[in-house]
């Protein structure tokens, strides 16, 4: 799929009255953003459903200040960030109340591609910014609105993210696989 195709297709749709169409056109797009943030296929599938469930509940509150695609991506980013916070908290708990799914992702690190390993070197917000900009073709202003950060900082963060990815890709072992230790802190995690 060409970048930004689904976004153009959903422009002008009203979530309140055309939610099924929006769901159909944006599902894969939202899935990819979530997948880039959590770096796990199964978690991304569950979270994408949660995103649309939240969006469905909020559909009557949608205001056309942003395209519906951007509105959905904002919900997706917030849902993924909440999930990652819960995951981090679960890892800190001395007694595990449930099996946190994060270990699955890193346990399979050898199966991950070099690009995924490079993305793993970034913070979730930077991952979202990179994918929204370079894959979905969102402008810096739109990304700023989606991430809830000033638009002036988006460009520098994207440039920083690309620099980190370039370095991570150059350090990746030949033939693929993760080039980063699972426990090392991602860049920009404080952001």
């Amino acid at each position, binding site marked *: *799929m060409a*970048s930004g195709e689904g976004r153009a297709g959903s422009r002008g749709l009203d979530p309140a009255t055309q*939610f*099924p169409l929006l*769901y*159909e056109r944006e*599902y*894969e797009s939202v*899935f*990819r953003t979530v*997948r*880039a943030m959590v770096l796990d*296929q199964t978690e*991304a*599938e569950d979270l*994408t*459903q949660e995103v*649309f*469930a939240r969006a*469905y*509940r909020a559909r009557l509150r949608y205001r056309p200040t942003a395209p519906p695609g951007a509105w959905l991506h904002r919900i997706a980013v917030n849902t993924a960030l909440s999930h990652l916070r819960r995951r981090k908290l679960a890892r800190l708990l001395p007694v595990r109340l449930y099996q946190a799914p994060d270990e699955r992702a890193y346990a399979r690190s050898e199966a991950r*591609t*070099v*690009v*995924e390993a*490079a*993305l793993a070197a970034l913070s979730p917000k930077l991952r979202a910014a*990179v*994918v929204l900009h*370079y*894959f979905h073709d969102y402008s810096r202003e739109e990304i700023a609105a989606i991430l809830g950060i000033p638009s002036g900082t988006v460009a520098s963060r994207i440039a920083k993210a*690309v620099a980190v*990815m*370039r*370095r991570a*890709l*150059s350090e990746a072992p030949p033939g693929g696989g993760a080039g980063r230790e699972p426990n090392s802190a991602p860049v920009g995690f404080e952001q």
Partner: protein
Amino acid sequence: MKVDEQPSERDVIELLRAEVDAWRPQDVPSLVEVIRRVEGHWRRPVALASALGAAVLAAVLLVSVLLLAVGPAIPGGETIRSHLIAP
């Protein structure tokens, strides 16, 4: 040199686009399933609150029964007992 070994920005973007483009959900549920999930979202907190309320009520009843049973054995128990069984 190390710097020359790094892929260009354009290469990184192309790799990223190719990778992300290959990501697809294995299963896209119907909107009906998602809506059903939304419609049932209130059940869990309501069930939890209900269970919590029932547990608190049971605990209060248990304490009351215990006070009635062993009332005279604790200081001031007789007063509490008389309050509990007062008409």
